[in-house]
């Protein structure tokens, strides 16, 4: 059985990181944070939490890797196809009225949703007037997103999602295959800017018409979810759309009153 981690160990680690690197994990959701720690202990063959805490404390390079391992980067193209379908059918007609469109993938991970949205906007004939910002706290995943290179074994799932999302072509029209990899058509991201950005500490000066933040808030506790939704509120004008994960809800956040529910089923909100 795996190494057990108790709450005191977690507090000690959180305090060490806070004191040394001014980064606060204190508002991360406990269960998933604990699981990430178990994973790291296993990955680096630490024998207990003390060993990990010491390593984090005295090895800055290791700490950077630790940060990357803590974040969860599972994603898919057109994950939850019904959301993308709803977006295509109901949000796109609203966006089409704008003279230019700005979309922020606020935790873009390895970029699967960046390509998904670019494909959707291209099929809607809106790609040329849309500017995308794709940001993440982890530079390694941003590099993957920028390269558009994905394992071929994942593509059948992505294709299946694409078809269910109401795609008008075939996903294979948007990538070339070489060996074990799919190479996305990079013209899809010619209006995308990639940037490292920390949702917790970062300040965003730009304004957006759509913010996607899907399956990120689940890793935070409610007070931190509050802060992030509040930060988003400052980066949008009335009528802008906020999309969260299919089982996330902003209903318990203080700033929820600043949004109306555009699609309850698909977790699309609209700024009042």
């Amino acid at each position, binding site marked *: 059985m795996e190494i057990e981690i108790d709450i005191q160990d977690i507090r000690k680690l959180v305090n060490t990181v806070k004191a040394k690197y001014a980064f606060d994990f204190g508002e991360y*959701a406990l269960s*998933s944070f604990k699981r990430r720690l178990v994973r790291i202990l296993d990955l680096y063959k630490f024998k207990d939490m003390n060993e990990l805490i010491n390593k984090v404390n005295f090895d800055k390079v290791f700490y950077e890797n630790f940060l990357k391992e803590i974040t969860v980067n*599972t994603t898919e193209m057109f994950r939850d196809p019904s959301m993308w379908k709803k977006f295509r059918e109901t949000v796109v007609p609203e966006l089409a009225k704008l003279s230019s469109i700005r979309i922020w993938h606020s935790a873009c991970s390895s970029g699967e949703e960046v390509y998904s949205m670019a494909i959707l906007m291209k099929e809607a004939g809106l790609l040329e007037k849309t500017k995308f910002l794709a940001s993440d706290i982890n530079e390694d995943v941003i590099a993957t997103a920028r390269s558009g290179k994905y394992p071929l074994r994942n593509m059948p799932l992505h294709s299946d999602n694409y078809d269910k999302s109401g795609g008008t072509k075939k996903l294979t029209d948007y990538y070339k295959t070489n060996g074990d990899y799919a190479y996305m058509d990079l013209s899809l991201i010619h209006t995308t800017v990639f940037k490292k950005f920390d949702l917790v500490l970062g300040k965003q000066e730009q304004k957006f018409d759509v913010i996607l933040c899907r399956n990120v808030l689940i890793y935070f506790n409610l007070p931190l979810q509050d802060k992030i939704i509040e930060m988003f509120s400052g980066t949008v004008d009335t009528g802008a759309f906020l999309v969260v994960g299919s*089982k996330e809800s902003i209903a318990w956040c203080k700033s929820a009153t600043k949004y109306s529910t555009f699609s309850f089923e698909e977790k699309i909100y609209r700024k009042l």
Partner: protein
Amino acid sequence: MSNYKAIVIGGSAGSFPLITKILASLPKNYPFPVFLALHRLKHVRTGFVEALSIKSGIPVIEPNDKQQIKPGIAYLAPSNYHMYIEPGNTFSLSTEEMVKFSRPAIDLTFETASNVYRDKLVGVIVSGANTDGANGIAFVKKRGGLTIAQDPQEATISTMPDGAIKATQIDHILKIDDIVKKLIEVAN
């Protein structure tokens, strides 16, 4: 006063009729939350809750992240998410790596529930085609909770109850009708 505060049930292949039967037998005022960690088709998000609800004695819902846990409700782990029980009576969800090819993973719901409810938890493993849940029920046992496995001879696919029985000293190995009786008995 009951010694327990929550029920967690895990199953996969062949478990649907069993879960339906269990839920149908629970009274409306059942005093505990019932957590259901069941393997399910990855991209079929809807339909399962409705199917389970038809005969259920208590409401069945798929919780949102950070939703409050209440007694008398069955909570089904949502498609493509792990379902965790957090301190402070809430859920949290996660898209972390699959465990034993499964998301939701039975092991993770059981482990997090046992962290919160300790010896006040009843864990049940029924029919299923892999050993997800074995580590989870071992956690329940270790924290002093009550452990139940479906009798492998009765299970449609016995890999999962067999795995549970191998992983720890299971308190009760029961046929489904007796599991139902037990779940009602622990509430009184």
